[in-house]
């Protein structure tokens, strides 16, 4: 389902151009609005659909195998931490879904440099950052001994 942009909704803000992982959302030279320049490189990842502040982008299933008349639209509400989906089948049946997308505030991740710096002796050890605590096992980091590995067949 490559994406397409509704003429009456797009105001040429460029968010879709910024976000597209495939670099295929670009600006039309006649209307200065967005469109999908390379549908055969569109993964239908919906990044542009979700990023568009005007909900101006929609998708139509790949013409190779998707008949017309369906609709899969989404509303991602960042501030509420949710994403909602509204599916319409070709025959009119409808399905709706809502899922959480995040449990903490955007921007709230603690930067690694805000943690206490590792001690010099930690560099030689195998523990990565926040270990062994974040393994939550109350045990040391597991390890093998060299003699536990034997050369296999051939």
């Amino acid at each position, binding site marked *: 389902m490559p994406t397409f942009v509704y003429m009456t909704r797009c105001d040429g803000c460029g968010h879709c151009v*910024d976000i597209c992982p495939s670099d295929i959302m670009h*600006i039309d030279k006649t209307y200065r609005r967005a469109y999908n320049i390379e549908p055969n490189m569109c993964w239908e990842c919906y990044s542009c659909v979700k990023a568009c502040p005007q*909900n101006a982008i929609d998708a139509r299933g790949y013409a190779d195998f998707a008949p017309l008349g369906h609709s899969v639209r989404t509303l991602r509400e960042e501030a509420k931490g949710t994403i909602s989906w509204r599916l319409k089948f070709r025959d009119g049946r409808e399905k709706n879904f809502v899922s959480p997308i*995040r449990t903490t505030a955007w921007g709230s991740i603690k930067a690694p440099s805000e943690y206490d710096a590792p001690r010099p002796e930690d560099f030689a050890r195998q523990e990565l950052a926040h270990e062994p605590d974040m393994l939550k096992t109350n045990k040391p980091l597991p390890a093998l001994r060299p003699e536990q590995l034997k050369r296999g067949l051939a």
Partner: protein
Amino acid sequence: MLAINPFAALSASIPPAVMQAFVVVMIVLVAVGTLFDIVHKGSARYFFDNWRRARGKAPRLGAGKLASIAVQTAVVDVLGSGEFCNARRRVAHLLTMYGFVAHVIATVVLVFNPSASTLWPQLWWIGGLMVLAGGYWFWFFIRVDVAAEGNSPLRVTRADLFILSLLASVTLGLLWAWLQSWVLFGLYVLATAVLFGSVPWSKFAHMFFKPAAAFEKRISYANGTRSNLPAPVDKPEQFGRIPKHARHY
């Protein structure tokens, strides 16, 4: 200079009737150009077909509701350029839009009434300067093909026909009124003719399409069809937003 009608001095060389006829032709060009564009592209037919199809699937809204939506559209979307989600773009558009309206109305008044009060030349200048401020700001910095795509601000495509001819017309008009050169006047008339004559090929007519689209969008939210989008969830806004960077590259 700001209190003088720049067109008054012209009547010594150009009969006022000619100037007035030119203004009338420009207005007619806008109307004819827009109508031609609509008919040729079939955009009105698309719009009303779409409306009819959507209305068939949705509850009818009462006349009162429709009226209130029309008012909201007029006040928020049209007068307030409310559809812009980005503050910078909205301000630039408001500057350009109100500047253009003021400048055009003032031009008409000044051409048809050479002895109009000093308010009108001032409005002509202020409107013109607003167009230049909003327009050049948009041209060099805000245009999405420059801001998001990294194109040079000097790159010109067909989408630029409207803004370029608008900026040319107003820039040349103000320059002429300031420097009183015949060459500048000639170029100003030419640019203005291009601006109004190119309506079928430029984005000029968006000032008529956009309000219609804004109204249709509001209707679709009001009657529950919301263009097949899911409804917002009933949850508190507690997570903030990802900070949007001005430049992503």
